Protein backbone atom coordinates (compact mmCIF):
# COMPACT_ATOMS: atom_id res chain seq x y z
CA UNK A 1 0.00 0.00 0.00
CA UNK A 2 1.79 3.02 -1.25
CA UNK A 3 0.41 5.73 1.06
CA UNK A 4 1.06 3.50 4.08
CA UNK A 5 4.55 2.87 2.82
CA UNK A 6 5.25 6.54 2.38
CA UNK A 7 3.91 7.29 5.83
CA UNK A 8 6.00 4.53 7.34
CA UNK A 9 9.06 5.90 5.67
CA UNK A 10 8.17 9.36 6.88
CA UNK A 11 7.80 8.09 10.40
CA UNK A 12 11.10 6.35 10.55
CA UNK A 13 13.74 7.55 8.20
CA UNK A 14 12.79 11.01 6.98
CA UNK A 15 10.87 12.85 9.66
CA UNK A 16 11.04 15.96 7.58
CA UNK A 17 9.12 14.32 4.77
CA UNK A 18 5.73 14.57 6.39
CA UNK A 19 6.37 18.15 7.38
CA UNK A 20 7.43 18.89 3.84
CA UNK A 21 4.28 17.27 2.47
CA UNK A 22 2.17 19.31 4.88
CA UNK A 23 3.94 22.47 3.79
CA UNK A 24 3.49 21.70 0.11
CA UNK A 25 -0.18 20.88 0.63
CA UNK A 26 -0.72 24.15 2.51
CA UNK A 27 0.95 26.24 -0.14
CA UNK A 28 -0.97 24.38 -2.83
CA UNK A 29 -4.26 25.06 -1.05
CA UNK A 30 -3.48 28.75 -0.83
CA UNK A 31 -2.44 28.88 -4.46
CA UNK A 32 -5.58 27.11 -5.63
CA UNK A 33 -7.78 29.47 -3.66
CA UNK A 34 -5.87 32.47 -4.93
CA UNK A 35 -6.17 31.35 -8.51
CA UNK A 36 -9.83 30.43 -8.17
CA UNK A 37 -10.47 34.01 -7.23
CA UNK A 38 -13.41 35.65 -5.58
CA UNK A 39 -17.00 35.11 -6.64
CA UNK A 40 -18.50 38.17 -8.35
CA UNK A 41 -19.60 40.79 -5.88
CA UNK A 42 -23.16 41.98 -5.69
CA UNK A 43 -24.11 45.66 -5.65
CA UNK A 44 -24.67 45.48 -1.90
CA UNK A 45 -21.24 43.97 -1.36
CA UNK A 46 -19.69 46.66 -3.54
CA UNK A 47 -21.34 49.32 -1.41
CA UNK A 48 -19.99 47.59 1.70
CA UNK A 49 -16.48 47.46 0.28
CA UNK A 50 -16.43 51.13 -0.63
CA UNK A 51 -18.09 52.08 2.65
CA UNK A 52 -15.51 50.09 4.58
CA UNK A 53 -12.83 52.34 3.11
CA UNK A 54 -14.53 55.55 4.20
CA UNK A 55 -14.38 57.00 7.69
CA UNK A 56 -17.74 57.92 9.17
CA UNK A 57 -17.31 61.70 9.62
CA UNK A 58 -19.22 61.93 12.87
CA UNK A 59 -17.88 58.77 14.51
CA UNK A 60 -14.55 58.39 16.20
CA UNK A 61 -13.13 55.28 14.61
CA UNK A 62 -15.83 53.49 12.66
CA UNK A 63 -16.05 53.10 8.93
CA UNK A 64 -19.16 54.06 7.02
CA UNK A 65 -19.90 50.34 6.66
CA UNK A 66 -19.80 49.68 10.40
CA UNK A 67 -21.37 52.84 11.74
CA UNK A 68 -25.03 52.83 12.78
CA UNK A 69 -25.21 56.64 12.58
CA UNK A 70 -27.86 58.17 10.28
CA UNK A 71 -25.26 60.14 8.34
CA UNK A 72 -23.37 56.93 7.62
CA UNK A 73 -26.60 55.37 6.45
CA UNK A 74 -27.15 58.24 4.07
CA UNK A 75 -23.60 57.94 2.84
CA UNK A 76 -24.20 54.30 2.04
CA UNK A 77 -27.32 55.24 0.09
CA UNK A 78 -25.32 57.88 -1.73
CA UNK A 79 -22.66 55.31 -2.61
CA UNK A 80 -25.35 52.97 -3.92
CA UNK A 81 -26.91 55.66 -6.09
CA UNK A 82 -23.53 56.75 -7.43
CA UNK A 83 -22.73 53.15 -8.30
CA UNK A 84 -26.08 52.95 -10.03
CA UNK A 85 -25.21 56.10 -11.98
CA UNK A 86 -22.10 54.35 -13.25
CA UNK A 87 -19.41 55.98 -11.15
CA UNK A 88 -16.39 53.86 -10.34
CA UNK A 89 -15.21 53.16 -6.81
CA UNK A 90 -12.32 55.59 -7.25
CA UNK A 91 -14.65 58.33 -8.47
CA UNK A 92 -16.97 57.84 -5.52
CA UNK A 93 -14.07 58.07 -3.12
CA UNK A 94 -12.83 61.19 -4.89
CA UNK A 95 -16.30 62.76 -4.54
CA UNK A 96 -16.24 62.27 -0.79
CA UNK A 97 -12.68 63.53 -0.52
CA UNK A 98 -13.71 66.67 -2.41
CA UNK A 99 -16.39 67.33 0.22
CA UNK A 100 -14.71 66.10 3.40
CA UNK A 101 -11.00 66.16 2.75
CA UNK A 102 -8.46 63.35 2.88
CA UNK A 103 -9.42 62.44 6.42
CA UNK A 104 -12.63 60.82 5.21
CA UNK A 105 -10.58 57.97 3.77
CA UNK A 106 -9.82 55.21 6.25
CA UNK A 107 -6.31 54.96 4.89
CA UNK A 108 -4.17 57.91 3.83
CA UNK A 109 -3.76 58.78 0.15
CA UNK A 110 -0.79 57.14 -1.46
CA UNK A 111 0.84 60.35 -2.63
CA UNK A 112 2.90 62.78 -0.70
CA UNK A 113 4.12 62.64 2.84
CA UNK A 114 1.05 60.74 3.98
CA UNK A 115 1.81 57.99 1.50
CA UNK A 116 4.93 57.14 3.46
CA UNK A 117 2.63 55.27 5.82
CA UNK A 118 2.59 52.39 3.37
CA UNK A 119 6.35 51.97 3.40
CA UNK A 120 6.77 52.21 7.13
CA UNK A 121 5.73 48.66 8.07
CA UNK A 122 8.21 47.23 5.58
CA UNK A 123 10.88 49.57 6.89
CA UNK A 124 10.18 48.52 10.45
CA UNK A 125 10.26 44.83 9.68
CA UNK A 126 13.39 45.14 7.55
CA UNK A 127 15.27 47.09 10.21
CA UNK A 128 14.20 44.59 12.85
CA UNK A 129 15.40 41.65 10.76
CA UNK A 130 18.68 43.37 9.94
CA UNK A 131 19.30 44.26 13.58
CA UNK A 132 18.50 40.71 14.64
CA UNK A 133 20.75 39.34 11.92
CA UNK A 134 23.64 41.49 13.03
CA UNK A 135 23.11 40.48 16.63
CA UNK A 136 22.89 36.79 15.87
CA UNK A 137 26.00 36.96 13.71
CA UNK A 138 27.88 38.62 16.54
CA UNK A 139 26.74 35.98 18.97
CA UNK A 140 27.54 33.14 16.60
CA UNK A 141 31.05 34.42 16.00
CA UNK A 142 31.81 35.06 19.67
CA UNK A 143 33.86 32.34 21.25
CA UNK A 144 31.83 30.36 23.72
CA UNK A 145 32.67 30.80 27.39
CA UNK A 146 34.81 28.11 28.92
CA UNK A 147 32.62 25.09 29.22
CA UNK A 148 32.42 23.50 32.62
CA UNK A 149 35.89 24.05 33.98
CA UNK A 150 38.21 21.39 35.25
CA UNK A 151 36.16 18.79 36.96
CA UNK A 152 36.65 19.14 40.65
CA UNK A 153 35.80 16.18 42.70
CA UNK A 154 33.68 18.09 45.15
CA UNK A 155 30.67 15.95 44.40
CA UNK A 156 30.38 12.51 45.91
CA UNK A 157 29.42 9.45 43.90
CA UNK A 158 25.85 9.62 45.15
CA UNK A 159 25.60 13.24 44.23
CA UNK A 160 26.99 12.59 40.78
CA UNK A 161 24.38 9.88 40.30
CA UNK A 162 21.60 12.27 41.38
CA UNK A 163 22.92 14.77 38.91
CA UNK A 164 23.00 12.21 36.13
CA UNK A 165 19.44 11.09 36.88
CA UNK A 166 18.16 14.63 36.94
CA UNK A 167 19.82 15.38 33.62
CA UNK A 168 18.31 12.26 32.10
CA UNK A 169 14.87 13.26 33.34
CA UNK A 170 15.34 16.75 31.90
CA UNK A 171 16.42 15.39 28.57
CA UNK A 172 13.35 13.22 28.46
CA UNK A 173 11.04 16.11 29.23
CA UNK A 174 12.49 18.74 27.01
CA UNK A 175 13.20 18.30 23.33
CA UNK A 176 16.78 18.11 22.17
Amino acid at each position, binding site marked *: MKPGGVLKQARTSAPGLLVLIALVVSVATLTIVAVRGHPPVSRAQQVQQIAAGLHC*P*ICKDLSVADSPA*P*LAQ*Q*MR*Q*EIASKLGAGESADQIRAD*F*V*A*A*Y*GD*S*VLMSPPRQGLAGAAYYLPWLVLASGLIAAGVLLRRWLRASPPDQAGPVTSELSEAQLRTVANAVAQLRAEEPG
Partner: protein
Amino acid sequence: MAGVIALVAVIVALLATGLGRDPSVIASPLVGRAAPNFTLPQLDGPSVTLSKLRGQIVVLNFWASWCTECQVEQSALDRTWQQFQDSGVVVIGVDFEDTAGDARNYVRTANVTYPVVEDAGARAALAYGLRGVPETFVVNRSGRIVSHVVGPINAARLGNEINTMLDARSR
Protein backbone atom coordinates in the same frame (compact mmCIF):
# COMPACT_ATOMS: atom_id res chain seq x y z
CA MET B 1 23.77 60.00 25.41
CA ALA B 2 23.55 62.96 23.05
CA GLY B 3 21.61 60.76 20.71
CA VAL B 4 19.08 59.96 23.41
CA ILE B 5 18.57 63.62 24.22
CA ALA B 6 18.19 64.57 20.57
CA LEU B 7 15.68 61.78 19.93
CA VAL B 8 13.61 62.64 22.99
CA ALA B 9 13.64 66.31 22.00
CA VAL B 10 12.31 65.48 18.53
CA ILE B 11 9.60 63.23 19.95
CA VAL B 12 8.50 65.81 22.49
CA ALA B 13 8.50 68.59 19.93
CA LEU B 14 6.30 66.58 17.57
CA LEU B 15 3.87 65.63 20.31
CA ALA B 16 3.77 69.17 21.62
CA THR B 17 2.39 70.40 18.30
CA GLY B 18 -0.74 68.48 19.13
CA LEU B 19 -1.27 70.32 22.37
CA GLY B 20 -3.56 73.28 22.24
CA ARG B 21 -5.07 72.16 18.99
CA ASP B 22 -8.55 70.65 19.07
CA PRO B 23 -8.19 67.26 17.39
CA SER B 24 -11.84 67.15 16.34
CA VAL B 25 -11.59 70.28 14.21
CA ILE B 26 -11.08 69.32 10.60
CA ALA B 27 -10.55 71.98 7.95
CA SER B 28 -13.06 71.93 5.13
CA PRO B 29 -11.51 71.44 1.71
CA LEU B 30 -14.33 73.36 0.08
CA VAL B 31 -13.21 76.83 1.09
CA GLY B 32 -11.97 78.56 -2.02
CA ARG B 33 -13.64 76.09 -4.35
CA ALA B 34 -16.85 76.21 -6.32
CA ALA B 35 -19.92 75.58 -4.22
CA PRO B 36 -21.51 72.23 -5.12
CA ASN B 37 -24.73 72.87 -6.94
CA PHE B 38 -28.09 71.56 -5.74
CA THR B 39 -31.78 71.83 -6.52
CA LEU B 40 -33.85 71.37 -3.42
CA PRO B 41 -37.56 71.90 -2.75
CA GLN B 42 -38.57 74.55 -0.28
CA LEU B 43 -40.72 73.54 2.66
CA ASP B 44 -43.54 75.53 1.18
CA GLY B 45 -42.61 76.90 -2.18
CA PRO B 46 -40.82 76.26 -5.44
CA SER B 47 -37.41 74.58 -5.68
CA VAL B 48 -34.21 76.51 -5.17
CA THR B 49 -31.26 75.92 -7.48
CA LEU B 50 -27.98 77.27 -6.21
CA SER B 51 -26.46 77.97 -9.62
CA LYS B 52 -29.42 80.21 -10.46
CA LEU B 53 -28.36 82.44 -7.58
CA ARG B 54 -25.09 83.32 -9.28
CA GLY B 55 -24.52 87.05 -8.98
CA GLN B 56 -25.81 87.15 -5.44
CA ILE B 57 -24.04 86.43 -2.19
CA VAL B 58 -25.48 83.28 -0.63
CA VAL B 59 -25.37 82.41 3.06
CA LEU B 60 -26.01 78.68 3.20
CA ASN B 61 -26.96 77.51 6.68
CA PHE B 62 -27.39 73.80 7.50
CA TRP B 63 -29.67 73.32 10.52
CA ALA B 64 -32.15 70.93 12.10
CA SER B 65 -35.18 71.33 14.33
CA TRP B 66 -33.66 68.99 16.93
CA CYS B 67 -30.43 70.97 17.12
CA THR B 68 -30.22 73.21 20.17
CA GLU B 69 -27.21 75.19 18.94
CA CYS B 70 -29.14 76.08 15.78
CA GLN B 71 -31.72 77.85 17.91
CA VAL B 72 -28.91 79.96 19.32
CA GLU B 73 -27.97 81.34 15.92
CA GLN B 74 -31.52 81.70 14.62
CA SER B 75 -31.92 85.34 15.47
CA ALA B 76 -28.51 86.19 14.00
CA LEU B 77 -29.51 84.63 10.70
CA ASP B 78 -32.85 86.40 10.66
CA ARG B 79 -31.18 89.72 11.34
CA THR B 80 -28.67 89.15 8.56
CA TRP B 81 -31.52 88.35 6.18
CA GLN B 82 -33.45 91.44 7.15
CA GLN B 83 -30.37 93.59 6.85
CA PHE B 84 -29.01 92.43 3.53
CA GLN B 85 -31.85 90.93 1.53
CA ASP B 86 -32.13 94.03 -0.62
CA SER B 87 -28.39 94.19 -1.25
CA GLY B 88 -28.19 91.02 -3.30
CA VAL B 89 -27.69 88.64 -0.41
CA VAL B 90 -29.70 85.46 0.02
CA VAL B 91 -29.91 83.41 3.22
CA ILE B 92 -30.99 79.81 2.68
CA GLY B 93 -31.60 77.31 5.42
CA VAL B 94 -30.99 73.67 4.50
CA ASP B 95 -32.78 71.23 6.77
CA PHE B 96 -30.61 68.26 7.79
CA GLU B 97 -31.86 64.81 8.84
CA ASP B 98 -35.24 66.09 9.83
CA THR B 99 -38.91 65.46 9.09
CA ALA B 100 -40.94 68.00 7.12
CA GLY B 101 -43.44 68.26 9.96
CA ASP B 102 -40.85 69.08 12.61
CA ALA B 103 -39.16 71.53 10.25
CA ARG B 104 -42.41 73.37 9.51
CA ASN B 105 -43.23 73.58 13.22
CA TYR B 106 -39.84 75.04 13.92
CA VAL B 107 -40.10 77.56 11.09
CA ARG B 108 -43.46 78.64 12.39
CA THR B 109 -42.53 78.97 16.05
CA ALA B 110 -39.15 80.58 15.43
CA ASN B 111 -40.63 82.80 12.75
CA VAL B 112 -38.01 82.09 10.16
CA THR B 113 -38.35 84.53 7.31
CA TYR B 114 -35.73 83.36 4.83
CA PRO B 115 -36.24 80.46 2.45
CA VAL B 116 -35.83 76.99 3.93
CA VAL B 117 -35.26 73.89 1.81
CA GLU B 118 -35.47 70.18 2.54
CA ASP B 119 -32.52 67.93 1.84
CA ALA B 120 -33.86 64.43 1.37
CA GLY B 121 -31.22 61.73 1.83
CA ALA B 122 -28.76 64.41 2.97
CA ARG B 123 -27.36 64.55 -0.56
CA ALA B 124 -26.55 68.25 -0.38
CA ALA B 125 -25.18 67.84 3.12
CA LEU B 126 -22.84 65.11 1.92
CA ALA B 127 -21.73 67.25 -1.02
CA TYR B 128 -20.84 70.01 1.42
CA GLY B 129 -18.92 67.69 3.74
CA LEU B 130 -21.27 68.18 6.64
CA ARG B 131 -20.22 66.68 9.98
CA GLY B 132 -23.05 68.08 12.06
CA VAL B 133 -25.26 71.07 12.54
CA PRO B 134 -25.12 73.99 12.52
CA GLU B 135 -22.63 74.68 9.76
CA THR B 136 -22.71 77.77 7.57
CA PHE B 137 -21.09 78.40 4.18
CA VAL B 138 -20.78 81.84 2.61
CA VAL B 139 -20.78 81.72 -1.20
CA ASN B 140 -19.66 84.76 -3.21
CA ARG B 141 -21.17 86.09 -6.40
CA SER B 142 -19.13 83.86 -8.65
CA GLY B 143 -20.34 80.79 -6.82
CA ARG B 144 -17.15 80.25 -4.83
CA ILE B 145 -17.19 79.32 -1.16
CA VAL B 146 -15.33 82.00 0.76
CA SER B 147 -15.88 80.88 4.33
CA HIS B 148 -17.10 78.00 6.45
CA VAL B 149 -18.26 78.25 10.04
CA VAL B 150 -18.87 75.27 12.31
CA GLY B 151 -21.24 76.00 15.14
CA PRO B 152 -23.54 78.96 15.74
CA ILE B 153 -22.58 81.97 13.65
CA ASN B 154 -21.74 85.34 15.05
CA ALA B 155 -23.99 88.01 13.51
CA ALA B 156 -21.40 90.75 13.72
CA ARG B 157 -18.71 88.68 12.01
CA LEU B 158 -21.09 87.54 9.31
CA GLY B 159 -22.26 91.11 8.76
CA ASN B 160 -18.66 92.32 8.42
CA GLU B 161 -17.87 89.61 5.97
CA ILE B 162 -20.85 90.41 3.80
CA ASN B 163 -20.11 94.13 3.95
CA THR B 164 -16.56 93.52 2.83
CA MET B 165 -17.79 91.55 -0.14
CA LEU B 166 -20.37 94.19 -1.03
CA ASP B 167 -17.79 96.98 -0.76
CA ALA B 168 -15.34 95.08 -2.94
CA ARG B 169 -17.96 94.87 -5.67
CA SER B 170 -18.88 98.50 -5.62
CA ARG B 171 -15.26 99.64 -5.69
